[in-house]
């Protein structure tokens, strides 16, 4: 895994601001001196600037903010050339101040996120080029001329822009557009979408890059999918293909991969839509025309065509107004980019309110349908709009709660070092997928179980170095932590290459602890015996130690994870290692439900669990599986499973195939009713004891519905 630098962003921004502020203060101090600045003070100031710029240049490069490092580098160049001089002429000072100010703007832009596309200040680059050229000229003509030529040029440039400077200063190399980037007006604002873009992070152009021809136009199109769409991801996919008939799609947000893998939220496609950067300039009519035969499209907006590279005359067309003015107004940039710490409880409250709003607007929507036309139609239209806004609000509150797993992973290296020292093991830890995000509440709650699993793996699993060598293993015990997203779940795996769980030992322990009789224990398969590790009070460690051997471990891990709506699975190969797999929901709050009728009742199934809904036989006639796409899948009459009247009749009926954490199952129901997004409410005592129920939800109609917890229902 390439080291993810995004977690250093805050540090970088703090640091960079300090550097820029120091440069600006120093230069301003010089500027406040009357007349030309001379002597040692100049030297001191320039040294300080040089040091600061140099430092900023390197850190920006590490962070991948090429426009910042390029600009810092260019200012540094000019400063470097000035260091040997006796005096610092005022117009040049002004150029430097303006350039540092632009640098500051870029730093502020960068604080929005690691993937922020920075808009480099073309005019400042031109000014710097002019200054540079003038310095060269004055170097070759006369050392003591005071830079008369460039002074005029730079003065002209700072007044009337780059064109004047260009005229005054032949021969000039073309302005270096070091890092001129296309930035769509929409792209930074989408929650959860930034960083998913298929566009390479650095679309920046380098000097002399032949492939990047000037004026490479792109049309930015936003398409929103209708709320009624049964398969919004596939709808977006089809729309993108239609757009491709007009020109190459340069990038898409959310990315094509996110669509195909199902990672992208259908709600986003409805409320925010997806954005495509299409090669070439296309009229709104042309774009609407290619999409005209596509149903379930809510709106098509052309957000404008943005030249990838603006030449001097086209600068005004650049999507972002930064920073062409002499004094970029940084204060206006700051508020949107600053972060505020918010208590998780407050977010919970917001989320709950947003959830209630979704329900309330759904109810208004249903009522609006009863109002006769034409008022009814208009009302319905407006309520639809309201619902979209509310959904977007909901989505954004949810997004605000998402945090990267990095927060958890960051704690591990310390723990590993400590364990390694105390247990005298050699250990290495490899972390993968730390950028996967989870609800903040889940991350906090997961810290203990995960740390415990790590301690457990090192203490019980990883052998002492001598034992490992005897077993033909590398001396250093290895641990892998990996996370990946799978539909609506996150799989968090902790794997080690230690000795693995000993099924026999677990059987013995269970017998000794009185949990099982000998016969019962022996009847267990190894896989079943592994689950004994989750029994309270059972520890395979003979001696209690302060690392993990008190037997309050794995049962607590399981309990906490189940409370979070997840499960834990153990896998082990004796002698080769073990894996603890946490299967977690990404969020606990809003779910898209498939509503099914069973008897007279409604039941909801989280859509994230549904693989296929298909027609099947009315009765299983004693069989326990159902053939779906040539595969035999364990099948249940859902009514029977939840203890309601059993379905009678032989007419074909719907079967829903679900994913129960890797295992598939088919449920026979009486009818499929539809889909609805709901706020999932956890069950209160004593209902939470019922296995197979994930919670309840109130439908838009006000009707309550039980939501099934698939893995526990069939497990």
């Amino acid at each position, binding site marked *: 895994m390439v080291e993810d630098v995004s977690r250093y962003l805050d540090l970088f921004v703090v640091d960079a601001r300090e550097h820029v502020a120091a440069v600006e203060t120093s230069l301003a101090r010089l500027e406040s001196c009357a007349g030309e600045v001379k002597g040692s003070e100049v030297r001191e100031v320039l040294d300080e600037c040089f040091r600061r710029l140099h430092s900023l240049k390197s850190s920006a490069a590490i962070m991948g903010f090429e426009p910042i490092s390029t600009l810092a580098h260019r200012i540094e160049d000019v400063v470097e050339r000035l260091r040997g001089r006796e005096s610092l002429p005022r117009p040049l000072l002004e150029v430097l101040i303006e350039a540092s100010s632009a640098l500051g703007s870029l730093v502020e832009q960068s604080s929005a996120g690691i993937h922020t596309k920075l808009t480099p200040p073309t005019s400042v680059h031109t000014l710097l080029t002019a200054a540079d050229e003038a310095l060269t000229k004055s170097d070759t003509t006369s050392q003591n001329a005071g830079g008369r030529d460039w002074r005029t040029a730079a003065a002209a440039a700072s007044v009337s822009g780059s064109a004047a400077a260009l005229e005054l200063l032949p021969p000039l190399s073309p302005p270096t557009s070091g890092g001129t980037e296309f930035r769509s007006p929409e792209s930074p604002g989408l929650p959860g979408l930034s960083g998913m873009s298929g566009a390479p992070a650095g679309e920046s152009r380098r000097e002399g890059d032949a492939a990047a021809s000037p004026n490479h136009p792109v049309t930015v199109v936003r398409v929103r999918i209708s709320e*009624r*769409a*049964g*398969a919004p*991801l*596939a709808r977006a*996919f*089809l729309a993108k*293909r239609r757009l491709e008939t007009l020109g190459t799609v340069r990038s898409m947000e959310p990315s094509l991969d996110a*669509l*195909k893998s*199902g990672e992208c939220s259908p709600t986003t496609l409805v409320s925010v839509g997806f954005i495509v950067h299409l090669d070439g300039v296309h009229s709104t009519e042309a774009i609407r025309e290619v999409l005209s*035969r*596509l*149903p*379930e499209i809510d709106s098509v907006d052309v957000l404008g065509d943005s030249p990838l590279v603006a030449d001097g005359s086209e600068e005004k067309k650049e999507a972002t107004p930064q920073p062409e003015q002499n004094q970029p107004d940084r204060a206006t940039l700051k508020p949107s980019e600053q972060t505020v710490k918010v208590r998780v409880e407050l977010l919970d409250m917001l989320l709950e309110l947003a959830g209630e709003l979704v329900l309330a607007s759904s109810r208004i929507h249903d009522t609006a349908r009863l109002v006769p036309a034409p008022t009814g139609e208009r009302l319905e239209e407006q309520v639809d709009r309201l619902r979209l806004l509310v959904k977007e609000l909901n989505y954004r509150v949810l997004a605000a709660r998402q945090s990267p797993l990095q927060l958890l992973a960051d704690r591990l290296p310390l723990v590993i070092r400590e364990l390694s020292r105390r247990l005298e093991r050699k250990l290495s830890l490899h972390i993968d997928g730390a950028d996967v995000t989870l609800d903040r509440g889940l991350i906090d709650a997961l810290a203990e179980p995960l740390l415990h699993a790590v301690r457990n793996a090192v203490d019980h699993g990883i052998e002492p170095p001598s034992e490992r060598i005897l077993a033909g293993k590398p001396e250093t015990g290895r641990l892998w932590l990996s996370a990946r997203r799978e539909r609506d779940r996150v799989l968090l795996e902790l794997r080690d290459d230690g000795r693995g769980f000993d099924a026999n030992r677990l059987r013995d322990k269970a017998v000794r602890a009185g949990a099982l009789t000998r016969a019962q224990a022996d009847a267990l398969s190894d896989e079943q015996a592994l689950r004994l590790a989750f029994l309270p009070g059972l520890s395979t460690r003979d001696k209690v130690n302060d690392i993990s051997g008190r037997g309050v471990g794995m049962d607590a891990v399981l309990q906490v994870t189940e409370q979070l709506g997840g499960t834990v699975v153990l896998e082990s190969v004796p002698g080769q290692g073990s894996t603890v797999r946490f299967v977690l929901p990404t969020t606990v709050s809003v779910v898209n439900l*498939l509503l099914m009728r069973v008897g007279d009742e409604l039941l909801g199934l989280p*859509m994230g669990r*549904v*693989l*296929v*809904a*298909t*027609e099947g036989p009315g009765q299983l006639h004693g069989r326990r599986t159902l053939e*779906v*796409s*040539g595969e035999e899948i364990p099948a249940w009459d859902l009514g029977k499973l939840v203890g309601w009247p059993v379905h009678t009749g032989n007419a*074909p009926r*719907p079967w829903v195939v679900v994913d129960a954490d890797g295992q598939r199952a088919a449920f026979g129901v009486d009818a*499929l009713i*539809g*889909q609805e997004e709901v706020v999932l409410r956890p069950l209160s005592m004593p209902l939470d004891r019922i296995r197979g129920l994930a919670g309840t939800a109130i439908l838009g109609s006000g009707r309550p519905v039980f939501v099934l917890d698939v893995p526990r229902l069939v497990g």
Partner: protein
Amino acid sequence: MATRVLIVDDAIFMRNMIRDIFANGGFEVIGEAGNGLEAVEKFRELKPDLTTMDIVMPFKSGIEATREIIADNPGAVIVMCSALGQESLVMEAIEAGATDFIVKPFREEDVLSVVRKVIGN
């Protein structure tokens, strides 16, 4: 002239339902097929204006059938009938050349509005 439709689905129940929907909507159903193999044959024989195609079917999937039909008839209009939760299969079908799709369980007006849009009515 009414649009001529070929219905492909392995469930008789589904075929009947779709046939009724099209009949009500003023379309002419000219044939039916119960699997992908039959679909390809029927298409060759009937050259329909519009084909509705189930995705998961015995012998040959709707995606395979679509690919074969499109290879010989690039202009064929094929609307996939997908079940809920089959979005990735739908995308595969689109890559194979399907024109559009509808999602089961569907309502009569949904089917007709999609189909009319697709054929440009």
